[in-house]
């Protein structure tokens, strides 16, 4: 019992320290680092929500990026065409993404195993295609530009890099706490049970389908929220935000960080975002570098950074 409390306390402290660092960072670092961190935080929310599915429920949803994009486009369209306020845009993004998740889930949950992977990816690609081809609504290849930063009426200038960073950080911390609680709640533990043994859960009285379905919707809602924040961050949304590359990148973030841990996907989001952006400064071949990251992660580090750390920890203990 004591061992559990201690490791839990240690995790809390580590998390608290990380959040502390995130809060204190901006003044110290140059502007472009702050901008990258803002982007990382947004992606981290998506990655955490995807980990809920992949790591906690064993639902290998490859198409999660589509719900991120739906959130982003909803916000972009509403803000540029109907000039709605932040609150409306946020709720609409989450609503649309959750709604889409609900519809898509009815189809995808009819499949199991590798079919599920295939179908989630195919549906996400269809959603991408829709966003790409529905030019009158989404601007097609050109996307939607000049999305203004939210006007919160609090006298905050969200065009300022640092101020906007804190704005995003606030939402990130809220999401972190919510997902943290969710994972420890009875519902969250049920998802873990489903991951470990679906058949056992069924004979223990759990409506496995319903739990999975709810997990999909919740994850979709978080992705939509992140998409909403992204649209304000980037001030531009385009089909590139929902294409195959983007969907796979979210999966990579979860894997390289360590699936099934809460921290892992966050690390993954930061790693990949910084990698892509910093490498592209030095070489045009950043996609090739990214390709190597995919290959090396798949071959040597499937359990991610957290997994590797755990392995070194136990090795140290045995020695």
């Amino acid at each position, binding site marked *: 019992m004591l061992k559990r409390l201690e490791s839990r306390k240690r995790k809390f402290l580590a998390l608290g320290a990380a959040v502390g660092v995130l809060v204190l960072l901006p003044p110290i670092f140059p502007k472009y680092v702050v901008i990258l961190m803002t982007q990382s935080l947004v992606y981290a929310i998506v990655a955490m929500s995807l980990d809920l599915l992949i790591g906690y429920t064993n639902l290998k949803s490859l198409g999660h990026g589509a719900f991120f994009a739906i959130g982003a486009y909803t916000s972009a369209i509403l803000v540029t065409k109907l000039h709605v306020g932040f609150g409306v845009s946020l709720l609409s993004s989450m609503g649309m993404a959750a709604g889409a998740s609900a519809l898509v889930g009815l189809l995808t949950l009819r499949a199991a195993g590798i079919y599920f992977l295939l179908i989630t990816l195919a549906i996400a690609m269809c959603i991408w295609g829709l966003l790409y081809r529905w030019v009158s609504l989404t601007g097609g290849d050109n996307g939607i530009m000049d999305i203004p930063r939210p006007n919160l009426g609090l006298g905050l200038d969200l065009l300022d890099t640092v101020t906007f960073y804190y704005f995003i950080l606030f939402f990130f911390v809220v999401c972190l706490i919510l997902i943290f*609680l969710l994972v420890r709640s*009875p519902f*969250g533990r049920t998802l873990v049970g489903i991951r470990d043994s679906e058949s056992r859960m069924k004979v223990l009285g*759990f409506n496995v389908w319903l739990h999975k379905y709810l997990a999909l919707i919740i994850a979709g809602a978080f992705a939509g929220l992140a998409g909403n924040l992204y649209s304000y961050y980037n001030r531009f949304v385009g089909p590139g935000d929902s294409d195959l590359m983007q969907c796979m990148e979210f999966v990579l973030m979860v894997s390289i960080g360590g699936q099934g841990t809460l921290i892992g996907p966050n690390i993954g989001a930061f790693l990949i975002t910084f990698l892509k952006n910093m490498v592209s400064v030095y070489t045009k071949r950043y996609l090739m570098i990214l390709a190597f990251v995919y290959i090396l992660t798949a071959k040597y580090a499937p359990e991610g950074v957290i997994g590797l750390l755990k392995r070194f920890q136990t090795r140290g203990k045995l020695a």
Partner: protein
Amino acid sequence: MNLPIGEAVRSALECESLTKRFGGLEAVKEVNLRVDAGERRAIIGPNGAGKTTLFSLISGLYPVTSGSIRIFGQDITHVPSHRRTHLGLGRTFQITNLFPTLSVIDNLVMAAIGLKGMKFQMVRPLSTYGEFYDRAGEVLESVGMAEKRWEVAKNLSYGEQRQIEISLALISNPVVLLLDEPTAGLSPADSVMMTEMIHHLDPKITILLIEHNMDVALQVADRITVLHQGGVFAEGSPTEIRNNTRVQEIYFGTED
């Protein structure tokens, strides 16, 4: 648990012409079964006789091709698996099916919340629900494994895992319990412990067990049903079955 009341003597479990076909293969053929309340029924038969398939039909993991299943008169043939648990059906698996990454106590707590509505609760940590940990602790005590509370399930010995298997099923207070080869893979000493454990289960529970080990089956059961190639081959008291030469025949050459 909503069980119909009224008729004086009602079978705990009744299967009528139960059939399961997989493509061209008939795994379970027109099985008729009637188990009385509180009875201990052993289902035996050579490999491939359809015993585990029968259990999967009764517990709802496979849909039936034809026939019906009733618990205390209530037709559960088309009731989804998780709802059958709510109606009082419990089951263990032949291949140990614990939650490997969870501790023993967490395994049992998971089983405990299976029948509760709060399993959809998303904010309050599960660890604060003391009553489930108490109940889990109770069941652990009753099977004598209290010291293993914090062990991670996959680190337990095989015999211990098999015992936790049964504890998981017991937590939901089943009225009908399906034990799928409880002594499978156990050393003789562990088998004895397991047999003792089964003996000491609440006599009000109706128990069906699949057993490959004839000695265990003959010891524990009130009545034995022999399956062969998907159908009921013979049925009777342990003595009758032990002396049934046809039963001995179908076994020779298939025992490990």
